[in-house]
């Protein structure tokens, strides 16, 4: 399986770390809604088909990536930065 990192191009699976289900919403840090915290920590969508998930290119540029991958075929249909295009600046550019 190859993942095409927006910075680094197509790289082998072994360079990436899987960070799981990207459909979860983290409650606000001050939230005392236990159900929302439990759901965030423990509950997963786990679909058979397209899965919205987070990977980190830990053996490369260390970017966090949002990947849509089919769990039946392992085919990847999109890769982007978790924080959107703001991170897609040219290397070396400042804020």
């Amino acid at each position: 399986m190859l993942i095409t990192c927006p910075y680094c191009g197509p790289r082998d699976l072994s360079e990436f770390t899987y960070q799981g289900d990207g459909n979860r919403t983290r409650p606000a840090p001050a939230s005392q809604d236990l159900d929302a915290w439990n759901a965030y920590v423990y509950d997963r969508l786990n679909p058979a088909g397209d899965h919205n998930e987070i990977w980190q290119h830990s053996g490369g540029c260390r970017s966090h990536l949002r990947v849509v991958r089919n769990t039946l075929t392992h085919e990847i249909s999109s890769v982007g930065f978790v924080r959107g295009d703001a991170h897609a600046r040219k290397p070396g550019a400042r804020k």
Partner: protein
Amino acid sequence: MAEYSALALVRNALNGNRDWKPAWRKPEPKASYDVIVIGGGGHGLATAYYLAKEHGVTNVAVVEKGWLGSGNVGRNTVTVRSNYLLPSNTRFYEHSMKMWEGLSHDLNYNVMFSQRGCLNLAHTPAQLDDYARRGNAMRHLGVDAELMTPSEIKRLMPAIDISAKARFPIFGGLMQPRAGTARHDAVAWGYARGADRRGVDIIENCEVTGFLREGERIVGVTTVRGDIRAKKVAVAVAGSTGRVMQMAGIERLPIESHVLQAFVTESLKPFLDTVVTFGMGHCYVNQSDKGGLVCGGDIDGYNSYAQRGNLPIVEDVMSEMLALFPGLGPVRVLRAWGGLCDMTMDGSPIITTGPLPGMYLNCGWCYGGFKATPASGWCFAHTIVRDEPHELNAAFTLDRFHHGILIDEKGQGATPRLH
């Protein structure tokens, strides 16, 4: 008289093998049953068998989307052990171990259970201390466990590298002598025949497409072979739990489906008569009766329903096996395959009533479901009939995650790829 016996062999040998009956019938589904078990794998078939045998509930259907044994019960690396640390796991798996010890006799079907021992290797003094702790916890609950020294290990498996110049030198190991291996297909076939002879309908090629409801209550299933109603519907579908539960409207569960690969090499002369695990990484090896080395390692580590994995794990497993047995270098791998693992958020299983009325759920076996087959079916049957768990599976609830009573053997937290 037992259906399979030496006498039956002789009789059939003399009359041209005309008296053998099919091991199970191929019935058409009836309109309704007392219990439907979804999933004709080891756990589903064991559940049906113990429903009939222990509780006298024989108006039961097992519905299976493919053929019997087409899922994980035919895809695993056949290891049976009960060397757990936490009491709720140890008690459950030890109950399973005791059932394995009498299983061939109970089923009148040779499951080739071979108690050849399972050795976990330690590669640092700290790891050996940790194993001693686990061994003591096991012995405290009456389970067998022995620490072994490197020289004892070398006597047991002469091919192993115990030299100090090994990449990860071996400091010792924790042996469970009663652990071992079994013939996985025979387990499915034995339970299927045992259930069938007691009146259970085993319906293959019958994929469930949805659930029948009356209000909130589940009252049956829709299948590709028509609707089937039941007072109770039990789900034992391992890696497909997410898919099946979505049909019931349960979108999210504390489960991720992952792929676990396994490998078998070409046949070798007997040289390893124990199950051995590499402790500096994750790799387990045993030698089958045909001579092939059956081995595996970590799950691939990402959600998958594909029943096949990727190459990094292949490389991991092979390099770890070579670290243990350098002499295996020239040996070729014959086959590789993958199975779906229903990984829970704490690495421990779920056997429970619910989550909907009329429904019962058995899942979350991670990559260790094979050894649990007898106890899983036995406890699940009890849970279905009594509408409450047996003491042995009382801790394996679905809502334990939301109540903070996790059973996390390794203390990894809610990251399934690490369990």
